[in-house]
């Protein structure tokens, strides 16, 4: 599906230069039944950049990014208000299935499909959607996705092995490859390294920086240092509200809001 690509030129923060915006949240609120978890968020995400969302536990980070690929509405009681524009089109008016193909997601805990091999896991999106492609094209997609996820060299001789036999870090990269195989425009990562050791974490962080050439990345993280290392822009969320959204460097050196400063200095843990 190729529709006319519409870039919105938006001024972000206080920088004067115009930017390519791929995704724009307009007055977005998210609810679980009656309780409003995400409150009236306005956020413009730059194309081919890494944007991190940080904030204390329970502030609504997961809920927020689950709105963006329409997964929030699948939770019992989950509803949203406001607009989420992908290339200027509201995803809430699109078919949810199509939205999820364009906006991929990687979860906190690695979750490869236990019955599938590494190969099948990578093309799981095609299997799930009943899309049959010639073998050589499948092979290409698998190699390409695994290479992008920096996993190809480690698994190329074991593609027929079950995905769950890999280490945690490898499993998470397999999940990234699985999401990349669908050629998404945006990749949502929900604390992708919180279940991993430092070495595996470093590998994934390196990967994220490489990936932004081909896909826009939105990463939720608890880890302030991680946000500083990988992201171009950072949003700070507190009690469901967007407190501050700035280029990462700026937000970390001269936070505008007192709450951001307190978070960065470890007051909220």
């Amino acid at each position, binding site marked *: 599906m190729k529709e006319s690509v519409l870039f919105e030129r938006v001024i972000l923060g206080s920088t004067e230069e115009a930017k390519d915006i791929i995704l724009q949240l307009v007055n977005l609120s998210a609810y679980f039944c009656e309780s409003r978890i995400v409150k009236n968020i306005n956020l413009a995400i730059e194309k081919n950049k890494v944007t991190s969302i940080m904030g204390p536990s329970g502030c609504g980070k997961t809920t927020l990014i689950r709105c963006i*690929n329409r*997964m929030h509405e*699948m939770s*019992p009681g989950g509803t949203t208000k406001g607009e989420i524009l992908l290339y200027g089109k509201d995803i809430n008016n699109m078919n949810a*299935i*199509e939205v*999820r*193909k364009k906006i*991929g*997601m990687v*979860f906190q*805990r*690695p*979750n*490869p*499909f*236990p*019955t*599938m091999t590494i190969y099948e896991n990578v093309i*799981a*999106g095609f*299997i*799930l*959607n*009943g899309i049959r492609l010639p073998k050589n094209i499948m092979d290409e997609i698998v190699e390409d996705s695994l290479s992008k996820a920096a996993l190809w060299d480690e698994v190329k001789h074991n593609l027929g092995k*079950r995905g*769950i*036999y890999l*280490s*945690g870090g490898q*499993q998470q990269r397999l*999940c990234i490859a*699985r*999401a990349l195989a*669908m050629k998404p425009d945006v990749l949502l990562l929900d604390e992708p390294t919180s279940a991993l050791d430092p070495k595996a974490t470093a590998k994934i962080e390196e990967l994220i920086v490489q990936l932004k050439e081909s896909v826009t990345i939105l990463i939720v993280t608890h880890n302030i240092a991680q946000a500083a290392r990988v992201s171009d822009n950072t949003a700070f969320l507190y009690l469901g509200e967007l407190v501050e959204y700035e280029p990462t460097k700026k937000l970390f050196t001269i936070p505008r809001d007192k709450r951001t400063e307190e978070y960065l200095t470890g007051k909220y843990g």
Partner: protein
Amino acid sequence: MNNEVIIDKIFKGSLRAVGLVLLGIPLLLLGVMFFYSLPSIKAFGFRFIVGQTWDPVKGMYGGLPFLVGTLLTSLIALVISFPFSFSTALLLSEYLEGGILANMLKSAIELLAGIPSVIYGFWGLIVLVPLLRKLEMTMGIPPYGVSIFGASIILSIMIIPYASTMSREVMRLVPGDIKEAAYSLGGTHWEVIKRVVIPTSRSGIFAGILLALGRALGETMAVTMIIGNKNQLTFNVFEPGNTMASVIANEFTEASDTLYLSSLIELGLLLFVVTAIINFLGRKIIERYEIKGDDGALLNE
């Protein structure tokens, strides 16, 4: 030695004793049955299993008709019941979350498991057998009514709860994060069920089928009432037949001489062995399909 160590020892010792007793019961059962089967084993040997004639008057005892009857009724029952048990399991685990219909359906299935088999037998005689007779008349075949097919239908209803409950539980246990991953890749509900839920729970679904089969193989009362108790070898399911369990129940009180009694007991032994073999094979299949994970993507959930 202080008190705690002693208590610990006693506790361990008694647990071990209970374990040994439980291990001993089936062995003892097997031993006793084997001992009482000896006269018949000596008289017929392997012919007991392949012999087609069961004639107490002539002192001829061949168990093949009952072996066939047992396997036939059980397998047909399994085939009939599977669509029902599988679809109710799917409905309850994936489509209905709580709600009146779900609760009613669950209770109905539990109720099926709780009904005494003699009542199934009655129901079969009063309702099912006349219906079958009508069906057989329109088909232009001898209208026995009581038949292997009738017994299979009753059995199929009786075993639904076993397969259904087990499949429902394993499908419910499929980790939510795996399903979420599938949805996040653009899967529809049906695709997620087909590609993730069913493959992930297939060993459990199979275990449920096995449980149901075990139940069907040994079911006695209801089958005895409907199968027609004819000691003949037949593969025609619209004819009366007999199963191992039902012939034992029927003829045990009449068994006047040692050989007759011993042959009936050997049938029991055969049933025991058949059930054990099927269980063993089933377990092998389950193991093959079981999903094992090192750091437990599935098993630690």
